[in-house]
């Protein structure tokens, strides 16, 4: 944050009425918030209503935005910092991301939907990475168990899969 620049806060209001205040720069990570502010709305006391996103989910999104804004601001402030420090900071942020997104599946779904609705690309990518991590290299049955997917194939379809592609039941070697 540049020195002397007034601190502008933005209020996000979840679908269940909870309010979250964060720096406008942090909120601008969201394309939806950016668009709202660009058309001159959202800076009032009423805040920006976020539909279909509960307070619990929105609180996590706010944490993500604050963290990434802080990291980006720190990186901008240290222009003269050496490359090693930048790489270390990036690695540290990545580790924080991985820890942040290591959630139960229900929360992960909610955050993915919220990130998609709010247009936070970094968070969408993070959720996709987490989903891919849960599925990558796993057999079809393991994916089912991991993601809680119900097998609704008919017996004929199941037999066809068994016959045509038996390798889907084994992991990547």
């Amino acid at each position: 944050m540049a020195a002397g620049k007034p601190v502008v806060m933005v209020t996000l209001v979840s679908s269940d009425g909870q309010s979250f205040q964060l720096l406008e720069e942090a909120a601008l990570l969201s394309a939806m918030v950016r668009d709202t502010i660009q058309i001159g709305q959202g800076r009032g006391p009423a805040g920006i209503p976020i539909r279909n996103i509960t307070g619990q989910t929105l609180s996590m999104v706010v944490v993500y935005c604050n963290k990434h804004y802080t990291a980006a601001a720190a990186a901008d402030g240290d222009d003269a910092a050496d490359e090693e420090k930048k790489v270390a900071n990036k690695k540290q942020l990545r580790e924080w991301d991985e820890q942040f997104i290591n959630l139960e599946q229900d929360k992960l779904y909610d955050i993915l939907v919220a990130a998609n609705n709010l247009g936070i690309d970094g968070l969408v990518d993070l959720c996709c990475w987490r989903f891919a991590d849960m599925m990558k290299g796993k057999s079809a049955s393991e994916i089912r168990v991991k993601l809680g997917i119900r097998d609704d194939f008919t017996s004929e379809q199941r037999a066809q899969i068994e016959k045509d592609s038996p390798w889907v039941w084994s992991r990547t070697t």
Partner: protein
Amino acid sequence: MLVDGDGWLFPSAVASNKRPKLILPAEDDGFPLNDELLLLLVFVASSLDTDDLVRCAATCRRWCRLVAHDAHYICRLKPPSERFLRALTVGFFHQSHLDDSGAAPRFAQRPSRPRAPPRLPRCRPQARRMQPCGRGCLHPPHTLRQGQARTLRLRAAHHRRPRRNRRSAPSWAPGSTAFRLFLVYKERNFTASRCYSSNTRAWGTEGKLCAATKVSGKRLGEMRPGAWPSVVPCSGYQGTWCWASAWTRWRPLLRHSRGSGTSCSASTWATRWRTGGWPSRRMGGSARCRCAAGEAAVAAR
């Protein structure tokens, strides 16, 4: 790896929400993400490779439908799959960008067995690229317009020598630059075929298969190639993929040849079609095929 048919991933075999062919109970996979998010964010945007996607398709009906119907879209940016691409490809078209002669692209055949590497002409590494389309002469016939061909199958010869006279029958030699391509495709009311010869650098006339040999799109999908099928994209047909295969049954008609070789007219092919019958094993233009085709298209760029 010998790749078997993935008929269960063939789009027509997967019940569609728009035009359900099978009366099935509603999809109920218990997964909270809707189709759009699942397709765009999880399947497309994630780092899942083609093998993972097929495994995902085997988990439940909804995932199977999404993968099968949007395989081309999903796989366009995916890294090539060893399982699908290497095992399936019988060859590829090659043309050096240094070659200004306007000659037809060479067909570099992958060996029918993976132990022998394909023979490529000497050229700079960056010039070794697949070129099924572009400024090569291999454009499809103009009578085929996009969207007109419902089903398109591209079949190439199986280049193994006859079993009996393997020593004395030099019908094909690796490195031969001549090739013939045989297209079988569905028009609105009939099944048609055309042949391209690298010798004449031209497509032959379109042959209409007579009523006795009318073949449905499903039947086209069931055309079972030999042990080493391959998928290559067909130039000029967005959304339509060719199915190239090595099929010993058609060796007399669809062989690589030096010199003039044999002619391959639609009428003779129709006769073969009538009398030859079809192999029983199913080999559909499945999502796997489409995946591989997508990969081939990516590799070609």
